[in-house]
């Protein structure tokens, strides 16, 4: 079922049309989620017992870190589908996720640093969590560089897909680093097996923000993918028809 849908989306004009219809909905939901998440995080959520108001950086930092892992997994999955089924649209999703993945990894690192200074007493340490997240940023940048270094974009996509799959082993390392090794970064809060050790009024805005980030990612990846599709298909009938006569 999913594969049939992917195959249908694999047709560039259908993808362009479908994503164009989807975008206003995604944008609307994304704005609502952000509005609620920010209000909940900055106003409704109570002050933390130890960290005071500095903990409010969590609403930027944690969703960014989650998204940095999520985008990478989307890329690895798209890469696998691209290698096995050679569907062009999965190559496009793969490569157009890299920039936003890098941007959000950077956001997670920089806000973590800003949070770390007053709370831990340092901007940066080389513990397992921080180092593996930095490695993720380099993976994203490596993927972007590799793709732009190869002129044949189909070949470039295949090379990038392999790099994305190689790097996927870093994802569980990032997630479990705080449990496997002693780190300055604290252990997981929300994904603990017993119930999350965070007050509900603090947790709900966090989850809302996490969804808002996911929608933002979807919007950006579709915008970029649509541009990519237009340019790749610029010689085809359906693209020329779009711009023909409308001067």
């Amino acid at each position: 079922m999913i594969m049939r849908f992917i195959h249908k989306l694999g047709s560039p004009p259908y993808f362009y049309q479908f994503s164009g219809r989807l975008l206003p909905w995604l944008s609307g939901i994304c704005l609502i989620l952000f509005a609620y998440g920010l209000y909940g995080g900055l106003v409704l959520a109570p002050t933390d017992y130890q960290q005071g108001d500095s903990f409010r950086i969590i609403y930027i930092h944690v969703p960014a870190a989650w998204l940095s892992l999520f985008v990478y997994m989307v890329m690895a999955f798209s890469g696998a589908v691209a290698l096995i089924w050679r569907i062009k649209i999965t190559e496009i999703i793969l490569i157009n996720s890299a920039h936003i993945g890098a941007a959000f990894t950077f956001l997670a690192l920089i806000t973590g640093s800003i949070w770390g200074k007053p709370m831990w007493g340092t901007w940066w340490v080389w513990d397992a969590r921080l180092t593996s997240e930095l490695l993720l940023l380099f993976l994203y940048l490596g993927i972007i560089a590799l793709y732009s270094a190869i002129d044949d974009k189909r070949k470039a996509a295949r090379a990038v897909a392999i790099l994305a799959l190689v790097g996927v082993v870093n994802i569980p390392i990032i997630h479990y680093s705080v449990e496997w090794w002693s780190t300055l970064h604290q252990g997981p809060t929300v994904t603990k097996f017993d119930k999350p050790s965070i007050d509900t009024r603090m947790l709900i805005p966090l989850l809302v923000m996490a969804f808002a980030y996911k929608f933002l990612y979807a919007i950006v990846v579709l915008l970029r993918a649509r541009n990519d599709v237009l340019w790749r298909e610029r010689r085809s009938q359906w693209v020329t028809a779009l711009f023909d006569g409308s001067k």
Partner: protein
Amino acid sequence: MDSFSNFIHMGGYAGYVWTSYGIALVIFVWSVVSPIIQKRQLIKRIKSIVQDEQG
């Protein structure tokens, strides 16, 4: 307005909190605006290609 100035003050962590939110805002806006600008340029180029081929 007292609660508002408290809100801006962020319990003494204003610099850290608002810098984080500010950087996030810049990244959000950039990631949405850059493909939109790119699309405008793309459409211009495609239109000129279409016109070249027709004329």
